[in-house]
C-alpha cells in the first residue's frame, strides 16, 4: 500500500486472533487427552497424567498394520498422481486445444464433488467389474483425487517459467531427454516435490472415499474411526492421532514453503 500501513482496529485484530485460536486450540486438546489417566471419558482437567498409553499403542500390532497399509496406499497413490498429474499439466500448460478447460474441470471433480459420491461411484464400478476390494482399490481411488494436487502445482509452475527455455535448449543441440533432464526437471522439481508431499498427506488422512473402497483393510484413519466406537482405552486413539499429526505436519509445512518461494530456480533462468 502506497499510503503506508495503517493499524487495524481493535475489533478486527481480536476477531483475527480469535479465528486463529479457534483453528489451533482443538489440536492441543488431542495432546492433553493422550496423557490422561482416565481410560473411558474426557474429564477436564484430567484426573491424572500418564505416558502409559504410548506404550500400549506401540505394542498394538493392529496399529502397526494400519500404519503400514496407510503408508503403502499413500505411496502408490502419490506415484500415480505424479505421473498423471504432470503429464496432464505439461499438455495443458503450453498448448491450446479443444477441451482444455474440460481437463482442469474433470481433474478437479473428484475433490469438488462430495466424498461419498466419489467413494460410492468407485465402489459400485469396482463391484460391477467383479474386482475384489484390496489395498489396490484404495490406492486407485486415492490416486484419482490426488492427481489434481500435482496437476495444479505443476501447471502453476510451468505457467510462471519461460516457454523459450525448452526451445533454447533444443537450439543449443540438446536432445529431448537432455532438455527434460537439465532444463524442465530442475524447473518443476520443487513443484513436483510439493505436489507429491501434499498428495501423500491427503491420501494418508483420507477416510470417506477409503471407507467405500476398502474391504476388510484398515488404514490408519479407519482404525481411528472404529476406535471412536470403543468405550475403553480412549487415550490410545489420541496417541495415534498425534502420530498422524506428526507424520503429516512437518512435510506439509515443507511443501508450503517450497511452493511459496519460486525465486530459486526461476529467477536464475531469467537473469542468466
Amino acid at each position, binding site marked *: 500500500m502506497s499510503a503506508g500501513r495503517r493499524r*487495524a482496529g481493535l475489533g*478486527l*485484530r481480536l476477531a*483475527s486472533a480469535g*479465528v*486463529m485460536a*479457534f483453528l*489451533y486450540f*482443538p*489440536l492441543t*486438546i*488431542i495432546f492433553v487427552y493422550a496423557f490422561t489417566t482416565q481410560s473411558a*471419558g*474426557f474429564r*477436564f*482437567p484430567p484426573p491424572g497424567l500418564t505416558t502409559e498409553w504410548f506404550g500400549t499403542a506401540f505394542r498394538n500390532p493392529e496399529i502397526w498394520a494400519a500404519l503400514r497399509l496407510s503408508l503403502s496406499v499413500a505411496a502408490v497413490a502419490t506415484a500415480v498422481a505424479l505421473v*498423471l*498429474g504432470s*503429464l496432464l499439466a505439461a*499438455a495443458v500448460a503450453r*498448448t491450446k*486445444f479443444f477441451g482444455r478447460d474440460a481437463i482442469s474441470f*474433470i*481433474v478437479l471433480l*473428484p475433490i469438488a*464433488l*462430495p466424498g461419498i*459420491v466419489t467413494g*460410492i*461411484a*468407485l465402489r*459400485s*464400478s469396482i463391484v460391477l467389474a467383479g474386482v475384489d476390494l484390496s489395498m489396490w482399490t484404495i490406492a*486407485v481411488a486415492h490416486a*484419482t483425487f490426488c492427481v489434481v494436487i500435482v496437476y495444479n502445482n505443476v501447471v502453476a509452475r510451468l505457467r510462471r517459467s519461460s516457454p523459450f527455455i525448452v526451445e533454447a535448449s*533444443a537450439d*543449443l*543441440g*540438446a*536432445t529431448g*531427454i*537432455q532438455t527434460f533432464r*537439465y532444463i524442465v526437471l530442475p524447473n518443476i522439481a520443487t513443484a513436483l516435490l510439493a505436489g507429491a508431499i501434499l498428495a501423500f*498427506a491427503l491420501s494418508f*488422512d483420507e*477416510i*470417506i472415499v477409503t471407507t*467405500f473402497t476398502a474391504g476388510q483393510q484398515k488404514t490408519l484413519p479407519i482404525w*481411528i*474411526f472404529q476406535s*471412536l466406537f470403543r468405550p475403553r482405552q480412549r487415550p490410545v*486413539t489420541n496417541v495415534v*492421532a498425534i502420530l498422524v*499429526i506428526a507424520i*503429516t505436519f512437518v512435510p506439509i*509445512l515443507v511443501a*508450503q*514453503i517450497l511452493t*511459496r518461494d519460486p525465486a530459486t530456480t526461476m529467477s*536464475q533462468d531469467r537473469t542468466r
Partner: protein
Amino acid sequence: MAVVAEVPRAPASPPRRAGAFFYRHVRLKLLLLLLPGIVWFGVVYLGSLAALVVYSFYRLEEFTGLVVRDFGFGTYQELFTASNVDIILRTTLMAAAVTVVCGLLAFPLAYYMVRYASPAMKTVLYIGVLMPLWSSYLVRALAWRQILAGEGILFWALDKVGLDGVMRALLDVPVVGGPSIVQSYLGMLSVFVYLWLPFMILPLVAALERVPPSYLEASSDLGAPPQLTFRRVVFPLALPGLIAGSIFTFSLTLGDFIIPTFFGSSAFFIGTQVYTQQGVAGNLPLAAAFTVVPMVIMTFYLLTARRLGAFEAL
C-alpha cells in the same frame, strides 16, 4: 543458465530425431501426454460416476434383498418419499448454515491478512490457515468430540466464568438445541465450521488481494464512509472468493457422513443415509440415487459459480 553449456553436442541420434519428430508433430505429442490421464479419468472416474447413475435406476427386490438390474424409476420414487426429502432438506440447510458461518468468520481474518498484516505476519497466518486444511480431518473431528463432551473443557470453562446457564438456555432452543451439545445441531454446526473454515479463508484472501487499494482510496475520496466502501466496493469484489470458498464448504458438508455419525441427533443426513443404505441395508440403488442429489446440487452450484467468476479466485 550454466547447465545449458554443459550439454554435449551429439550427432543425430535416435533421441534427437525423436525430439525433432515431436517438435514437428505437436498434436501427436499432445495426444501422448493426454492419453494416460484421459484414460484414467475417462474410464476409472467418469465411468464410475456413470455406473453410479445407472445403478440408481436399478431397484432392490424387497423379498430377496437382491439388486434387480431392470431400468426403472422405482428407486427415485422411493427417494422422494417424505422422510427422504427431509434428509435432503436437512443436509442442504446444514450445508448452507455452515457456509454462511464460515463466510462470517473468514472475512475478518482474510481482510486483516490482506490489508493490515506485515509481510512476515501474513506468511505466518497464511501457512497457519493452510496447515489445518491439509492435516487430518478425522483427528480434528476427534478433538471436537473431546472438547464438547459433557465433562470436557468447554463446560469446565463455561462453568468457571459462570456462563454455563447461557449454554443450557441455548440447548433448550428448539431445532438448534438438544439434550447435550454433542447431540445438538449447534454442536454439529461448530464442528463443520471448524473443519471447513480454511477452505473459505484462502480463496477469500486471494480475492481480496486483487482489490486495488486505490479503489478504496478513491471511494473514500469521493466521500463514502467506511461501511459504504465495504458494502459497495470491497464486498462485491470479494464475492467471487466467497463463492469459491463456499463450493468447498457446501460440497464437503453435503457429502460428509463422519460428523453426522458422532454429532447431532440421530436424524439421518445424506452421507449417513448413503453409508447405511449401501452397507447395512444393502440397497445400493437407493444409495446411488441419494448421491445423485448432491451431484445435481453441486453441478448447478459449480455452473453458477463459474458464471459469477469464482473459478478465478480458486
